[in-house]
């Protein structure tokens, strides 16, 4: 429904290209950012973008892809909910000869192209940062995302890998905060009751929970003694890093992921040449370099 036109946005017959995108969750700030970037890029290229929300359900995601196929979209972008469970969607699209681009995270089935980064890596960076700060020795708490979800599992794998490599670092306790700031805050409060000054560091699977942990630690007057790191680099977290409350966050480039995803989708739809794997690295954000990330 945009009047704006560019040769990039039309397929052979002169009709506007239609791209369907199914996103993990439009209630997650990072994903909303990616989606906004996709929207902007699509507008720029004159493509019609249909964005739907899978609400963290792989089943719903598969169904949405089925729906896209039935509608005959020219390309599909999927921000997978799950590694395995979202894979049938990839197969369906491939069988229907519609290019499918995974953005942000992977599926076990190989799509037409992948744009994003490896979640395991984000946890590795975070835990390495902690190990460095603690000189390889100290008591760590881990706040998990929603148990059983791909991001939780991968971040857990990455974190455990680094813990194993640093025998001096002891895992005091781990528990889920279900990606939620309020739940994480309560969890941290309870942990403070249990472990008090024994706590040296906290790794939270996302910034929301990281912020919750920071709040609880501040309230208990322990923030100076505990290092907190989390993943996503949402604006709130960046502000917090700037203030020196949150020690570090891991930046994922939403802009690049979103933009590249659309570009790749358009190229694939028009059967032009495209990169099959666009890896966008994670970056550690600390007080030193936070200025580069703040808009």
């Amino acid at each position, binding site marked *: 429904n945009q009047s704006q036109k560019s040769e990039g946005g039309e397929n052979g017959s002169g009709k506007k290209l239609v791209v369907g995108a199914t996103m993990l969750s*439009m209630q997650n700030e990072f994903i909303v950012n990616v989606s906004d970037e996709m929207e902007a890029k699509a507008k720029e290229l004159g493509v019609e973008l*249909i964005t739907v*929300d899978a609400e963290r359900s792989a089943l719903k995601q598969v169904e949405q892809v*089925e*729906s896209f196929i039935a509608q005959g979209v020219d390309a599909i972008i999927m921000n997978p909910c799950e590694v395995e*469970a979202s894979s049938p969607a990839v197969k369906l699209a491939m069988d229907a000869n519609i290019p499918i681009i995974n953005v942000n995270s992977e599926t076990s089935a190989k799509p037409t192209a992948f744009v994003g980064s490896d979640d395991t890596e984000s946890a590795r960076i975070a835990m390495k940062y902690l190990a460095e700060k603690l000189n390889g020795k100290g008591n760590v708490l881990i706040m998990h995302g*929603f*148990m*059983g979800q791909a991001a939780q*599992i991968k971040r857990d794998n990455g974190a455990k890998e680094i813990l194993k490599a640093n025998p001096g670092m002891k895992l005091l306790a781990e528990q889920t905060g279900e990606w939620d700031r309020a739940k994480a805050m309560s969890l941290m409060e309870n942990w403070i009751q249990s472990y008090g000054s024994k706590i040296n560091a906290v790794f939270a699977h996302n910034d929301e929970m990281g912020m919750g942990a920071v709040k609880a630690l501040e309230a208990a007057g322990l923030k100076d003694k505990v290092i907190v790191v989390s993943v996503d680099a949402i604006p709130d977290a960046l502000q917090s890093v700037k203030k020196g409350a949150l020690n570090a966050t891991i930046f994922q480039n939403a802009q690049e992921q979103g933009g590249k995803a659309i570009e790749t989708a358009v190229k694939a739809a028009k059967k032009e040449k495209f990169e099959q794997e666009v890896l966008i690295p994670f970056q550690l954000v600390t007080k030193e370099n936070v200025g580069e990330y703040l808009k």
Partner: protein
Amino acid sequence: MDKSFRLQRFTQYGIFLAFALICIALALSTPRFFTIPNLMIIGTQVSINALLAFGVTFVIITGGIDLSLGSMVAVAGVTAAMFAHPDTYPLLVPLFAGLAAGVFFGAFNGFVITKSKVPPFIVTLGTMTIGRGLALILSKGRPISNLSDSFNFIGGGNVFGIPFPIIILIIAFMVCSVILNKTVLGRYMYAVGGNEPAARASGINVTNVKMWVYTLCGLLSAVGGILLTSRITTGQPNAGAGFELDAIAAAIIGGTSTSGGTGTMTGTLIGALLIGVISNSLDLLNVTSYYQQVVMGIIIIGAVVLDSMGKKDR
């Protein structure tokens, strides 16, 4: 007396009318709606919710409630997946294991509800949490993947061009309708929900009936769980979260009263279809996801308002 018959008929058809109106509106607003492939997709998408809704219809007719549906889906799905790796067991083993898990879980619900005086809401809220924990424990918190092709056929395959889930849905609908309308057990469900003391005074074994409905509900949830697992080719410990509300909604939209004693499988099926059609078409119409939720809520309330207008003079 014939007044009452007219009423009955209208209340049955009210939601059907609402459903038909919505379908017509959709067909007019997007040409993609009324296409065979899209209808097949809707049927497939509706199947799991409909199966759970059938199960919970039995339960609600007896005056109970089951919030553990979603967790039963996960437990049954994970259990089935554990036995569904290629070249391990024949297909019947994972199917049987999944169904058995659901039956066991449902029977446990029934047992606690009939033996204690704890309201079904609390019991099944408790088992909902327990079940979710069990699914995570069984799967060690990780999806169970690498399932055999034959297992994956259940959710992904076609027979004569009709997706297998739709076939299961139709069979389940017929079986559940027959149970409800043609068997003594079905009659007793209405009796227990309509007036439990009266049912007891007629010599009906109320405990038995309740055991049956919760077990049936577990069985149907397990079928849903297996279908889901096979459809996403993975046993997900967190699958099915929140399914209970959709299933209960389908039943109530279809005319099952939460106070028990009324309800039909046809109504529930239409309720499930209504929900499925709305969510499908909101995607088709490219309604922004936040507005989708608003529209979804309005349409559901609207459909039931439309339905209940016919009941005004009761």
